[in-house]
Every structure is written in C-alpha cells, then in structure tokens.
C-alpha cells in the first residue's frame, strides 16, 4: 500500500522564518520562493543556515518565527510526514540510510503501510533505478555500497515517494567529477518533468552550472536572491563571504637538503576479504615536500593514513620513516616518534567534545614526561601551552578550559592541527583537513601546511578538493580502489585528466607519463 501525495502546488513561499538554537541564530528573517520547473541553488559558507532552513521546510525542525505558504496558503509542517504529503523530499547532508538494511528496505521505509509485498517493492525500486539510469542492486546491503551508489539510493528513496520538490543538501561532496556531472544531468531532467529542485552547495561552479536562481545566505540571513543570468562568481563569492580572502603564496619545491630521508613506502598492500583496500602502493615523500593524494573518498585514502600511523596493520610491504621501520612500532610509539595525523572525521577520531581545549591538547601527550610532574598532570604547563596554541592558531575560544565541543568546526580543526603540529617532528598526515570549513578557516589551515613544509616536514595531504590539492601539493597522486593511478607533477595534470584518473581511467594522452612517474618513484 502506498500513501497519497498532494504535490500539485506551483510555488512555496518561505516568509520571515527565524530559527534559534541555544547559542546560535541559525536563520533570521529568511524570505524566498521555490517554484516548480526551477532549480534553486542555496549557496553559503558553513553554518550559514542552509541546512536549517531546508530542514524547517521538511518538517525536521520547527521554526521559531515565520510561516510557510503553498500557493499563498499558509500550511503547518509539523514533521517530515506532513512535508511528504506536499511532495517534498529531502536528501540530507549526511546520508540517512540504514546500513544494515537492503536497498529496497531503505527505499520503502516510511512509504508503505501494513504487510510489505517485498517482491513487488523490489521490482518498483529496480524500475525506478533503471528509469534514471542508476546502476543499483535492490538486494544489496547499503553498508556494502560505495558512497556514490548510496547517493543514488537516497535519490531513489525520494523518487519512490513521488517527490515533486527534491531538496539536495550538498549532494556532490562525495562524488567524482563525472558522477557529479551525471547528477547534474539528473537534476535537469527532473526539473524538465515539471518538478522543482533545491540544490544546497558551497561550490560556485556547480551553482553556475545547474541553477536557475540563486539564494545566497550568510550568518543565517539572506544576502542575495539572484537569477543566474544576472550574476557572476565574483559577486556570489562576495555575497557569501562578505570580506576578502588572500590565498597564501607558495614557492616551488626545490628538493631538500635535509639529512633526513623522509617517508619511504614500498609495495604496501592491505586486503579485507577479497577487497584490496591498498594495492601495492609505493612512494617516497621527501622532507619539506607536500604529496597530495586526490581521489573520491573511500578509495583507500583513510586506510593509507591509518597504516602509516599504526592504527591498522598492513599485509605486506614496508613503511620506513627517516630510516626507522615503522611497522615495528606501535601506534603510541609512532606518535612519540613524531608522526602527526589529522583524520578526516575529527568528532569521531581526533577530539573529545566534552573535554576542554587543554585536555584535547594533552590527549596525545599523556605519556610524555615533559607534560607530567611527579605523577600528576602538569596543569600550569598545559595551560600555558594551550594558550600558546590559541594565540598561534587564532583559535576563537573562551579559554583553555572551555569544552572543545562548543567550538565551531573550523576552530576545532585549528585546535587539532595545533596539537598535531606540536607533535609532528618527522611527518604530518592530513586527511581532508578543510572538509566542511569556511574560507577563513581554510586559509588559516593552508598557511599552516605551508609553514610545516617550509620547516622541512614531509606532508602527506589527502583531499577530495582538487583546488586544495593543486594549491598545496608539490606532487599529486591519484588513488582509485586502493591503487595509485600514478604520481604527477601538478603541471602535468588538468581537471579532466584527474577526473578520469579518479574514476580509474587512464586518459590516452598520459598513460606513458603515469608509467614513468611510478617507475621513477620506486627507490
């Protein structure tokens, strides 16, 4: 059995909506209109309030002030169920999938009543998938799927509910450029059918590519409501950021004259069952060099970081840092040796939200004699060092004793980076260090990376943001399914090349370049 949908409105007006969280004004007096047949882009930095306003429309949050009108008639949307009745579907920024369930179960969740005709449901899912050219196995467990496919499952979920307004919250963040193009194609097709799309992003390029109209948000307010034809990237950027950003300058890498030999990785492999997580990876990262690793997330980048740091063991190969065989050292010993690591998921892996800034700094030094006195934590010293970090890294925080969880994402990241910089004597590994941060914080972090490089530290930088890779790297490797597609000089590559490499395809015009580079690397 399926629910009835009444999605035949032609415009939705969001009028004077404000939303307060305990300590943040997430939305203030937000006004705009969504129309059928149009792609509306919602552009803004982190924390601008984009997700919040859409969650209000979708019934996940309740507005503190303001109203929502369908064709001029005010309606109350108390929960997602109400939103669905109006044909509204929303794909969350962080997927809301049940990993332990199959694709079919995920798709029909909340969309059927009573006894579930599984066979019929499966057929429907498959036919929806094929209509939009998605290659999705309806019986697969969602947890086993690549993120790109999970994205498609999210879309099918929405379509299954006869959605006429599809809200997509940063849908391209985890996609390859080619996958992103496919998605754009879908969006156009969907709107052409007379539906509406709200597309949330902070990527200017995508906005210019797909949007009909653009709403720019800053600090919870609307700072621009424009037609695409009437604007350009420079204007959007100004509306979004509200101030000027100077990108850090970078000198070319000139080889190192350090005695240290840096990080030498040879034939590193790791398998989980039949899946090769890391497939025969070799490279040499020299002191004072930044090696950027591009690729769609989930292609082994995290595993590479974790094997080097000692969080996981590898099956074969070797990892040698300044002549020391790391595989013989425990995680803790590697930290003591001076391997700094900024993981991608800071909330899960790098910080303890309920603990203070000082305690978060101390986290990696609890066994270090310099930080303890007579068996107790040397609190004065720790406080001093934390104040230094706050100063040096421009961390906006009430003080060393404030809980780290209360900081904004960017400041949390600076805190973590300050700690890792403190301990990284020999190697710094950064996994997507600026993911989800705003431009100010990104800039700050980029400067720090370049400073580390200038001090002669080898830096392994993983990022899905190609602009970041190009801005910081001396050499670039592209990872696909646990393999290096090659190591290149930034000058050899363009976006199209890298997009293909990220999808596992070696472009015809550069296969020889890739081969030579790899061979040259193996010491």
């Amino acid at each position, binding site marked *: 059995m399926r629910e009835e949908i009444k999605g035949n409105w032609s415009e939705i007006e969001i009028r004077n909506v404000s939303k307060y*969280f*305990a300590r943040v004004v997430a939305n203030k007096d937000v006004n705009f209109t969504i129309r059928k047949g149009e792609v509306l882009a919602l552009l803004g930095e982190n924390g601008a309030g984009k997700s919040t306003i859409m969650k209000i429309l*979708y019934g996940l949050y309740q507005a503190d002030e303001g109203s929502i009108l369908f064709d001029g008639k005010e309606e109350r949307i108390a929960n997602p169920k109400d939103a669905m009745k109006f044909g509204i579907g929303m794909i969350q920024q962080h997927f*809301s*999938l*049940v990993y*332990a369930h199959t694709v079919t179960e995920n798709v029909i969740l*909340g969309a*059927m009543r009573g*006894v579930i005709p599984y066979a019929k449901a499966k057929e429907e899912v498959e036919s929806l998938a094929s209509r939009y050219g998605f290659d999705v196995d309806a019986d697969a467990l969602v947890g086993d799927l690549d993120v790109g496919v999970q994205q498609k499952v999210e879309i099918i979920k929405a379509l299954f509910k006869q959605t006429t307004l599809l809200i997509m919250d940063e849908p391209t963040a985890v996609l390859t450029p080619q996958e992103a193009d496919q998605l754009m194609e879908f969006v156009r097709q969907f709107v052409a059918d007379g539906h509406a799309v709200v597309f949330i992003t902070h990527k200017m390029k995508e906005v210019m590519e797909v949007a009909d109209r653009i709403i720019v948000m800053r600090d919870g307010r609307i700072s621009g409501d424009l037609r695409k034809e009437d604007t350009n990237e420079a204007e959007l950027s100004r509306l979004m950021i509200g101030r000027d950003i100077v990108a850090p300058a970078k000198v070319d890498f000139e080889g190192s004259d350090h005695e240290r030999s840096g990080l030498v990785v040879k034939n590193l492999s790791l398998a989980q069952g039949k899946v090769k997580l890391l497939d025969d990876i070799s490279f040499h990262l020299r002191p004072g060099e930044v090696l950027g690793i591009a690729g769609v997330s989930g292609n082994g980048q995290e595993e590479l970081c974790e094997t080097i740091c000692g969080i996981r063991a590898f099956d074969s190969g070797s990892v040698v840092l300044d002549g020391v065989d790391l595989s013989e050292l425990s995680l803790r010993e590697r930290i003591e040796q001076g391997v700094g690591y900024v993981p991608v998921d800071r909330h899960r892996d790098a910080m303890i939200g309920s603990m203070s800034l000082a305690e978060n700094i101390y986290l990696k030094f609890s066994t270090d004699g310099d930080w303890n006195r007579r068996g107790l934590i040397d609190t004065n010293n720790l406080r001093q060092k934390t104040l230094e970090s706050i100063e040096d890294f421009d961390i906006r925080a009430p003080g060393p004793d404030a809980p780290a969880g209360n900081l904004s994402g960017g400041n949390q990241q600076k805190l973590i980076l300050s700690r890792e910089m403190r301990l990284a004597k020999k190697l710094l590994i950064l996994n997507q260090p600026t993911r989800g941060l705003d431009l100010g914080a990104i800039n700050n972090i980029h400067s720090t990376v370049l400073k580390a490089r200038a001090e002669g530290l080898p830096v392994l930088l993983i990022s899905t943001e190609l602009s970041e890779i190009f801005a910081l790297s001396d050499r670039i490797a592209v990872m696909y399914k646990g393999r290096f597609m090659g190591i290149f000089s930034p000058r050899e590559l363009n976006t199209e090349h890298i997009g293909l490499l990220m999808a596992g395809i070696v472009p015809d015009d550069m296969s020889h370049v890739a081969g030579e580079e790899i061979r040259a690397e193996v010491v």
Partner: protein
Amino acid sequence: MNVAVGILARALTMSTPLLYGSLSEVVAERSGMMVTAIEGIFLIGAWGGFVGTYLWGSALYGILLAMGLGMVIAAIYAFVTVTMRQHQVVTGTALNILVAGLCTYFQRVLFGIPTSPLKIDRLPQLPVPLLSEIPVLGEVFFNQNILTYIMYAIIPIIYFVLYRTSAGLAIRSTGENPVASDVAGINVNFVRYATVLFSGLMGGVAGAFYSIGFLGMFTAGIIGGRGWIAFAICFLGNWHPFGAVVGTLVFGLAESISIYMQSLGSAGFLPNEFFIALPYILTIVLTVSRRSFKVPAKLGIPYVKEGG
C-alpha cells in the same frame, strides 16, 4: 523416562514467562530501547496478576491488571528515557527499586498481615486433545496452561511483524538509525514509546505467569532476578525472535537440570551452589563465546532531534 519428560516439561513451563520477557525485549531493543526496568515490570505484573485475580475473582482480570500496571511502569520508563532522553540503565535501576517498594507496600495496604498465604486459583493445565497424547512431546508441549499456548502464537506473530510489515521495518530502522526513520516520516519517539509499552504489556503477562500461572500466590521474592534473565536472553539470542526462543529454551533447560541435580540431594557430586550458579555461568560463557553480535547500532542511545 518419566524424569526426563518432567525435566523437559518444567523447562518449557519456566521458559514461558522468560520468553514473554525476552521477546518483548527483542522488539524494544530493535527500536533502540533497552528496557532495563524489566525486573520491576515482571514484579508488578506478578503483583497485579495476583491482586486482580484475588479481588475480582477471575484470572482474566488479573492478567489485565498485570498488563495495565506493566504498561504504567513502561510508560514512566519511556517518558524518562525517550522524552527526557535520560540514561536507560540508570532509569531502570531507579524504577526497579521503586517498584519493589511499591508492591510490598501496597500488598500490606490491601491485605494487611496474614499469617498464611493468600491463595488464588492457578490457571488450569489445559491438555490439548489428541496432541497431548503424543508420547513425550505431548506431555511437554501440549499439557500447559493458556499463557504457554498464547506464547506459541506470539512467536511467529512477532517474527512476522518485525520482518514482514512496515511497522517492523520502522522499528528495526529506528534502532539502527533513528535519523533515517525521522527523515522517512516516522515518528521516532512514537515508535520507541510503542515498543516500550508493548514490552510493559508482555512483561506484565510474564510476571502474572509467576503469580497466576505457576504459583497461585504472590510473595515479594517471586521474581528473584528472572526479569534480568529474560533481558540477558535477548542479548544471547542476538536480538532475533527465534534466537530468543532458542536462548530461552537453553536457559530453561539449564535451570531445570540444575534443579534436578539439586533434587538428588547428597547424590550430587558437585556442591549445590555450583548448580545454582550454573545458569549464570552459562550466560557468561555464551556472552564470551558468541563471536558476532548484531547489536542494533543505536541501542541505548537517546535520539536528540534538535539538540540545543
């Protein structure tokens, strides 16, 4: 032969309330709710079963009162853990202490201080015609009371609801990822209230089984930790209804054998206390040896929708 049949029949009898309890725990935990008030729910069910039957003269009223009181405790539990989002283990501990006090207290308020136990009629043994004639199996499975027969029906129903209906899908998804449920238009708190209340209802019946179905009386020590056993069986059964059935039978059998050994008196070659501890040791061993548990991913974690 006779002895073996007795051991099996008793194992099944004692399994009945445990299965009511562990099945209800499976349902609730699949939605992310550990019902740690289960011991208290059992106890108040036993008390309610007794009081209802004693005062109104019919086991039916007793069972209804047991269900009602079980659900009252469950509702308080759900309010504190779901609406107020407080810790489940801790809330359960408080409620169990409170219920123990309340049952003893109101027993005195209602019945004063009798020197000999107040008795009610036990639910009769209802041999199923024909089926109960089957050798061994008949005596074991088809010479039980009505609550046991209802249990036979409940097992497949719970399985069916959990795995074949939208309600079951909603329950399972809510335990794995409440955000997914919420986004799909399912009211997470509603689902969790519902499963906890169901747990209260089933736990109430389980408790009533002890007073009405098995003993025909109420005493303060009537449950004596058996609610916790049902709780443990849900874990051991891997959060699956059939797992709970197997777990319950194993446990019932262990208890039955333990009693058999104790009943031999001095003939037992190991100390009595070993057999008393046997079911608990078995639980620990199973917990340890069980390699892969499929814990519902968000078990015990309150769902915070909007945060600050």
